[in-house]
């Protein structure tokens, strides 16, 4: 039996530059989780568009990827963040509706309708209100951390900003979510383990 090691993303990208067919490896590796993340932001049908456009853009930019970064996730999510940004109004509208009515149009996009009518918890409605009023930059950081499980370093890579900026944006965002939940906003604890 021969031990086979999966080539890491950087190696796949290096090979895809020579033979575009190899690019499918990157798609199969990252499209499912990325799709789920975008679904949480925008709903299932917009997620299709965003994920397709993300990989098409990534393909065009293969030559510019710095292969010193072995994991391509920050790069892909950074591209996706720009594309999600184009749907900012739809995203915010859904948070507002959820906060006001308890009906989550985004959750309805993927859930069985009947089931989805189960109204959101009070806490989630409060969170949705906070998400609606965050600046786009702060929201991006917060949701990359909460929904994509990115470290500070990964968010920094994805958004092309220093780690310190990630920290301050997250801090600002969490003050607002905590305030919305009725907690003491100053009690935000820095989770240094993430960075």
């Amino acid at each position, binding site marked *: 039996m021969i031990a*086979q*090691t999966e*080539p890491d993303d950087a190696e796949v990208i*290096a*090979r895809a*530059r*020579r*033979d*575009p*067919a*190899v690019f*499918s*490896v990157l798609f*199969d590796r990252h*499209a*499912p*989780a990325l*799709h*789920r993340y975008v*679904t*949480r932001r925008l709903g299932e049908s917009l997620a*299709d568009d965003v994920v*397709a456009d993300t990989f*098409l*853009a990534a*393909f*065009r*930019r*293969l*030559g*510019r*990827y*710095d*292969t*010193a*970064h072995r994991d391509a996730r*920050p*790069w892909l999510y*950074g591209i996706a963040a*720009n594309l999600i*940004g*184009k749907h900012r109004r739809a995203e915010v509208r859904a948070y507002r509706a959820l906060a006001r009515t308890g009906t*989550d149009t*985004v*959750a309805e996009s*993927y859930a069985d309708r009947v089931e989805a009518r189960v109204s959101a918890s009070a*806490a*989630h409605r409060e*969170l*949705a209100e906070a998400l609606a009023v965050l600046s786009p930059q702060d929201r991006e950081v*917060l949701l990359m*951390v*909460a*929904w994509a499980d990115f470290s500070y370093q990964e968010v920094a*890579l994805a958004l*092309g900003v220093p780690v310190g900026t990630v920290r301050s944006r997250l801090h600002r965002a*969490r003050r607002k*979510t905590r305030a919305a*939940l009725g*907690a003491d906003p100053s009690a935000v604890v820095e989770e240094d383990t993430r960075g």
Partner: protein
Amino acid sequence: MDDLKLLNGMRADAPEPGADRLDALRARVLRPRRRFRLVPSLLVTVSAAAGAVAVTVVVNGAVPPPQGARPSVAVETRPMNAAVVLVRAAQVSERRALTPEPRADQWLYRKNMVKQPNDAAPETQESWTRYDGTRRAVRWGRGPLEQFGSTPDPDDDDLTPREYAARLAGLPTDPDRLLAHVRGDRHWETKPRWDTGEPPDARAFRVLSVYLDQEVPVPPRLRGAIFRALARIPGVRVDSGVRDAAGRAGIGIAYERGAPGVGTEHDTDGQVISRSYLVLDATTYEFLGTRVDYVRDELINGEIAFPAGSFYATAELAKGIVDKPGELPGS
């Protein structure tokens, strides 16, 4: 209650896409044939048609890898004196006339041929890009003309031809300054702003190659400076008798030291696996295409993906400025 934990529970039931949905998406991204198959991915044209791919590479094959060193195949190319050839290429380039800038509503036409390593026959693609970047059109082989709008990305990563021309016009035409610039240029600079990690010489070779393989014309003085800068990069090599996808023999510029994803690829023993070339006409030094020669078997996960002797190549068959998509230069 921890706000992050609570947030984490929000829409936590969102599913990953099912197999059907994923298949449809994969087909959309990796459009099999005749839709937009991108041309020289090795060097990546900035506004080339959106990417795509036909063959699926099986990564988990059960084929045992060949034991020991992989045998190499003989190639008909011959190394030349790189410095002499590149300076000559610079001199010829610098004598060319400046191409007039197209109008915003004119279209850049390009006809390319692509030969995949595992395909018997090459494919041709014609593309039209409006100079202001707002629209594109593509035709695969003898297929229908497909037109589509083009939305520039919010970051400045995707440049329109006009923006690309402006960027080229702003580059230094002194070879030393140009080299210093591209050693640090991530092409693009604004996004993504990764740490450095790519060796400066490999980066310089890669970025200069991207410049030479553009649909917008490179100004003559800059083109000369690009060749002079290439001549200053240790490890740049020039071979004669390198053929593009159309079978035209020219000179091939390669980066023999190589780095991951750039230039000549080596195995762990330092043996050459594949050599990537920019192919230029041997007398006019016009861009002909690109080529990757697999000198030894290219393995992916122990399986032979591209056997020794196979090659990937592109060829630029025609290029020009026209007034409408679908129109050919000189018609």
